[in-house]
């Protein structure tokens, strides 16, 4: 399992693609970070008189991580698209299949590989909020909860991306499918929230955003944790089934 992850990571970092994405995402978020700070500096004087006014964590870090979630949603499909689609197209899957590895090990190995890439990206991102410590006190509990939420969110993106990549031999199709699915699950609660209140809001329950938002505010609910865990589990299980299905194909 670890050797598959290692292979995946080294292949990822040998292409300029991964480095470019790391750099560009960092650049984009740095710009947003600075604009959030500037806005906060402007209104700081006006709101400082109000008791219980939002601090730097609520005004800068939370919006920044919210933006980061959206940016990662945009780029995750392009990273995960290669997972299996590329192997199918290169005819390199037999290398993994003929090795003494189970389908579970192959899928989890690839999953861990991509997760490591995104953890690196998140490490770079978290440096920005931490740099605020130089001039201000920040709420570590809220930051911790938000980062934990972001990790779970990205883990879900990757799980969905790896599964959709195993369905096709064209990486681009895999990327588009992943993007559509993730975007749908992101905005699905817009439709749900327009429903009459009082009904059971199952569309809203499916929304990734709906489960991420409380964590951004510092609440860790077991309902959200189980949602993300279930989401990853289901997609990884389907990927394993899919890998077996290649062997049984008619």
């Amino acid at each position, binding site marked *: 399992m670890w050797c598959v992850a*290692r292979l995946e990571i080294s292949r990822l970092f040998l292409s300029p693609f991964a480095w470019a994405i790391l750099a560009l995402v960092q650049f984009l978020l740095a710009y947003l970070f600075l604009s959030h700070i500037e806005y906060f500096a402007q209104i700081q004087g006006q709101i400082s008189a109000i008791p219980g006014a939002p601090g730097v964590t609520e005004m800068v870090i939370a919006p920044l991580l919210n933006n980061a979630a959206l940016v990662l949603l945009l780029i995750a499909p392009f990273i995960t698209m290669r997972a299996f689609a590329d192997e199918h197209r290169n*005819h390199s899957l037999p290398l993994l299949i003929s090795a003494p590895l189970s389908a579970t090990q192959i899928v989890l190995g690839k999953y861990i590989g991509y997760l490591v890439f995104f953890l690196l990206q998140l490490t770079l991102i978290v440096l920005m909020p931490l740099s605020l410590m130089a001039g201000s006190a920040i709420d570590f509990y809220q930051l911790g909860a938000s980062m934990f939420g972001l990790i779970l969110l990205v883990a879900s993106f990757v799980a969905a991306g790896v599964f959709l990549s195993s369905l096709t031999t064209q990486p681009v199709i895999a990327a588009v499918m992943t993007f559509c699915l993730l975007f749908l699950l992101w905005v699905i609660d817009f439709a749900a929230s327009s429903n009459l209140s009082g009904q059971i809001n199952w569309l809203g329950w499916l929304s990734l955003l709906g489960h991420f938002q409380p964590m951004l505010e510092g609440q860790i609910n077991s309902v959200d944790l189980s949602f993300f865990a279930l989401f990853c589990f289901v997609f990884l299980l389907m990927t394993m089934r899919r890998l077996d299905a290649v062997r049984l194909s008619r």
Partner: protein
Amino acid sequence: MTILLEAQNLCRQFGPNIAVQNIDLSVKRGEILGFLGPNGAGKSTTMKMLSGNLAPDRGEIRIDGYDLLSQPKKAKAQLGYLPENPPLYRELTVSEYLKHCGRLNQLRGKALTSAVDTVIERCGLGEVKRRLIGQLSKGFQQRTGIAQAIVHNPAVVILDEPTSGLDPLQIRQIRELIREIANEHSVILSTHILPEVEMLCDRVQIINKGQVVFADSLAALHQQRYNSSLKITLANPPQVTELNSLPNISAVEIISPQQFRIVYQPEQDPTENLLAVAVAKQWALNELVREQDSLEDIFMHLIKDDASIAEVKN
């Protein structure tokens, strides 16, 4: 001798098409089995099933005593596989790639390093080991593919058309490599090139339309001659009937006014008699060539037989 790979009754269908039907196969230690057949006969399907990339509908496969379907990990640890398209990652260098392949096959630490060094030397990859696989010539890519199949020192190596698409020099080098590999491993070699089988293999299995039409040693295949013939050139030829009337000759075929093909039963060789008569009657014999059924003819014969049987059935 121990049997390292054994397959029984393999069957595989793709939708309504039967790709492989009741194929039995076995390879002993240190043996090269040639798996021969025209394109589309089911060679690659069989290779995929033996390597665990395709599940058979029926039948069982045992590698080094382990059942491939119920103990896949133990069986696959004893297996090296080079598919028709070598499974290479173009962005890695040769030695990086082979290291990863060793790791996938559970080699670690010192054993991994020494296995990779050995395989690079054996496959003649020393000069290109730091180059990217994507930049290598097809011959070197194919060697890298073979290196990948033997890096973990498996008992059985399955090579699916290893020489296709190479130039004659590369083909010769790859063949030498395969012969060397067979000193330590059992090899199953699928190909549609007949001389390759003649050069490399100890045993041959010919399949056509998913069924085995011949399975025996190469020597037995050569004995399957249907008839033998002589090609003669006479500057001063007699009438064909006169040639025909000589003893032990079953047929005479006219190639050109001066050239004849004389067909005879393998056990009744008329050459000596023919020479004596030719000298006595002053036919001015210029050329006498003994023609043998080549492997090619036998192959075509076996496949044609099968096709004609199928036609009769229909």
